[in-house]
C-alpha cells in the first residue's frame, strides 16, 4: 500500500493510500490539490537522497508533503 502523507501539526496526516490496482486516481487528485496550496512533494530515497515531485509516482511507497523552508 502506497501512502501520501503531509507533515502537519498532528505529526503527519495520511491523505491518500493506493495500490497498483486501486485508489491511484483519488491520490493524484489529492496530490495536485496539496501542491496548489503550496505544499512541496518529496520522495525520500534513503542514504541522503530525496527527489522533489510534481507528479505522483504510481510505484512510490511513500510521498511526503512538506512546507517551504526559509532562512531564519
Amino acid at each position, binding site marked *: 500500500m502506497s501512502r501520501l502523507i503531509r*507533515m502537519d501539526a498532528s*505529526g503527519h496526516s495520511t491523505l491518500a493510500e493506493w495500490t497498483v490496482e486501486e485508489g491511484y486516481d483519488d491520490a493524484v487528485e489529492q496530490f495536485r490539490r496539496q501542491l496548489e496550496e503550496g505544499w512541496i512533494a518529496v520522495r525520500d530515497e534513503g542514504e541522503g537522497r530525496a527527489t522533489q515531485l510534481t507528479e505522483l509516482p504510481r510505484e512510490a511507497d511513500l510521498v511526503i508533503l512538506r512546507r517551504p523552508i526559509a532562512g531564519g
Partner: protein
Amino acid sequence: MQHGAVSNAAVLPELASVPWREPTTAATLRRWGRLWTLWTVAWCVPFIAAGVVLVWIEPLAAAVSLACLAHAWIIPELYAHRGASVVHPKGPRNESAEPVAQGLLGDLLSHDARALQQRTGLALERGSFGVWLVGEGGVLLVAPGGRRVHAFCVRVSDRSLPPSDRIAHLLLALRADETGFATVANHAYSGATWRIRRRLRKPGRPALDEARAAARTPAGG
C-alpha cells in the same frame, strides 16, 4: 508505468525567494570561512595589541590591559555562541504530536543516525559539502577535515509543527538539493569546531563529536 517528474532538475523551489544569492558551493563556503577568520582576527588583534602596549607604556594600567585581552577573548566566544544557538531547541514543543513526528523522522534516518538524533536532538547527514547536523531551526555543517563548522539559520515557518517534523522538513530539503538548501539558509557563523562545541548545550555535543569524526573520514570509509 507512470514515473514522478523531478521538479526543475531537483532545484529547491524556495530558491525563488532569494534570487539575488550566489549559489553556495564548496568554494564559497571556504571563502566564507576565510572571511570569518579575517573578521575575527580584525576584531581581536587591536584589543590584544592595546593590552600589550598599555602595560608596556604604563604597568599600572594592567587592569585596563586585562580588560582589553578579555575583549579579545569574549568577542569570538560571542560569535560562537551565536553559531551554536542555531541548533538549540526553540519554539513550541507540541508534545502531543511529537511521538508521531518522531516516528516519521526515525523512518528517514539510518539506525545510527536515529539513535544519535534521539539522544542529542540533531540529525546527522552526510553531504557533498561535509557533514550536516540538522536541528529544529538551524543546521551546522562540519567541513571536510572536521576543523571548521559553518552555522546556518533555516527553518520551516509553521510553528505548529512538532520539533521532529521541523527537523524532517529541513532534512528532506537538504537531501533534495544540498546546494539550494545551503543557499536558502542564512549563513550565521563559521569558526573552529572546538570553539562552537563549547557553546553547544551538553546534549548536542556528542552529535558534533560524531559529525567531526565523520568529516575526518571519506564517505563510505
